[in-house]
């Protein structure tokens, strides 16, 4: 990993089941920067997150995603993770029968020990110690890490578990996909506190969100608005507040953009 890892999304076009979702996205996130990507439902936010991490099911029809100048689109998700990318899932997946501890140890060894030599795997005891530190940092207790991955977890617990993984794996660039969704205010504060603990010069963050409210707790350096598969406006933290005031509808009207598909407001979607 270089000293200052850069994720560059270059004129990215992506289709899902024959429908174009991303229509030329350009975005650059450097290690140490905090970017917020905002957009209404259906604007392509989660598609972008999925494509960057290599989720199956997308057809890339144009453009590229580069990490330190090298295209990563042909790499498997695990290789992308080992290059320093991380995706906090909007809907973390249950993995029955796999304990959080074992899962995280496998992930840690995969990410940190990229030569794959078993001898370099971190011993169980040393890993426990590291886990303890990170658990304290993001507010996860012993009981939670002994349970099976995300199984029976509340919405807040799932999001805290994603934050714990972020803390343990120490990626260069992390995409947090709607980490604030479905959380009550206390859970949101707890998750935001975790993110703030982790952010710093070694972490580039792309916070994907529908609402401005997480940005009350995590201050972005840059804010981007995604609509109709394109970034229609970029700015500083003020843009989030502006958007909160006028709504996506207001911005759409201002920019003269037609809403379409899922992105349309419910009352318009019927037409």
């Amino acid at each position, binding site marked *: 990993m270089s000293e200052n890892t850069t994720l560059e999304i270059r004129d990215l076009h992506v289709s899902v089941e024959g429908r174009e979702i991303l229509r030329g996205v350009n975005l650059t996130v450097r290690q140490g920067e905090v970017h917020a990507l905002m957009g209404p439902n259906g604007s392509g936010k989660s598609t972008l997150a999925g494509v960057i991490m290599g*989720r199956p099911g997308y057809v890339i029809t144009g453009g590229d995603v580069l990490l330190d100048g090298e295209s990563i689109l042909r790499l498997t998700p695990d290789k992308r993770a080992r290059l320093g990318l991380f995706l906090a899932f909007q809907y973390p997946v249950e993995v029955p029968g796999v304990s959080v501890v074992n899962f995280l140890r*496998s992930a840690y060894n995969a990410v940190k020990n990229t030569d794959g030599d078993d001898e370099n795997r971190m011993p169980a005891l040393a890993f426990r110690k590291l886990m303890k530190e990170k658990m304290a940092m993001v507010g996860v207790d012993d009981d939670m890490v002994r349970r099976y991955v995300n199984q029976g977890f509340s919405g807040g617990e799932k999001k805290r578990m994603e934050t714990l993984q972020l803390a343990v794996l120490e990626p260069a660039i992390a995409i947090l996909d709607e980490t604030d969704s479905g959380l009550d205010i206390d859970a949101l504060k707890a998750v935001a506190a975790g993110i703030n603990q982790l952010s710093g010069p070694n972490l580039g963050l792309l916070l994907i969100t529908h609402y401005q409210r997480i940005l009350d707790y995590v201050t972005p350096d840059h804010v981007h608005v995604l609509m109709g598969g394109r970034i229609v406006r970029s700015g500083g933290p003020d843009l989030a507040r502006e958007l909160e005031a006028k709504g996506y509808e207001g911005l759409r009207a201002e920019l003269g953009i037609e809403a379409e598909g899922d992105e349309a407001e419910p009352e318009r979607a019927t037409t």
Partner: protein
Amino acid sequence: MADTLTTTSGFSRASLPAPTGQPAFVTALRERALEAFEALPVPSPETEEWRYTDLTGFELDFQPFAEGGGPEAVNRHGLLAAAGVSGERAGLQIQRNSEVISTQLGATATEPGVILSDLDEAASKHPDLVERYLHSLVPADRSRFTALHAAFRTGGTFVYVPKDVRLELPLQTLTYLDADGAAVFPHTVLVAEEGAEVTFIDRFASPDLDRALSNAIIEIHAGPNSKVRYVCLQEWGHGVTHLSVQRAHVDRDAEVRTLVVTLGASLSRSEAETVLEGDRGTSEMLGMYFGDGDQHFDHRSIQDHIGNETASDLLYKGALRDSSRAVYTGTVIIEKDAHRVDAYQTNRNVLLSDRAKADSVPNLEILTNDPVRCGHAASVGPVDENALFYLQSRGIPHAEAERLIVYGFFREVLDRIALAEVREGLERAIEAELEG
């Protein structure tokens, strides 16, 4: 019809076993069974019962008897390693091929009346007791194969735990087969009298062979208020055909927990049945299988509820690699006069290759008008793609992610296995299967 295709020359009246001291009832049983064997048809794949396992062309040209080699054979052939005994035992019996070669009942099982014995020897020493139970749950004429078993069985295990005796440590029989071309007839009769507690492990192991037959019967009698755990570990080598019928009778307030593990043999058919006759009897039936190569597994189960407030819970889980094949057929029967019954049945299969195939066939036969709590679930499918992506997104390579998920898939069964050494042994076995 298909009988003409089947060579049975080795299995004739002349070759019926006659161990020393064989009581008259066993001699008569063998003769009746031989007649039944000759009269019964080869099970037809036209019938529901044998729909998935076609044995019409299966040649019975096996040697009816293969020597065990006496007690000194215990220390050869890697027998003890194959016994997989990692913990303490209340008793251990070893059968090699057709003969029991060693029986040891330990110091912890010295309560008067506890029996762990060669079934033939038990029949000779305790004829009344053995006559009461032998083939009482699985009659000789149930099928052509059970008849063959009843006629030609040698060796086998008789376990008897008297009233209120609780054995903390497990008893085990290892049946080891290394005679190519032989047929063996493992038979376990396990009797727990009222209030007794016992754990018994049946382990079947062999090297890879060209061809051999294991035709097994397990009969479990759980007396009133008894607790019985029965574990069957089928780890035959390639080339073995394993046909087994296991049936448990559960008396009032008794608890029977069975675990069927199928890892070995080329073709393995295991029928496991629990009859909950007494009121408030409970039954847990667990199953685990992992197929590879061209293995064929046919698991069948019956949960038969006769008594009131009886409860049964079945969970079978299997993974299939390469071009292996599994079918599970489970039947829950709630008899006419059974009230307040709980019955659950779950079978899940994970396919690790495009060529692997599994079927799951649940059946419910509810004959009572009483409301019953009864549920069943079945699934067959590849490894969950979302879980794979999730693990891979954390840096875990595809193959390791799949191993973790499949290992986790079996956790649900492993977590319910009380005996630590059995659980740990299975964890190692699953890891080995996953390493391929």
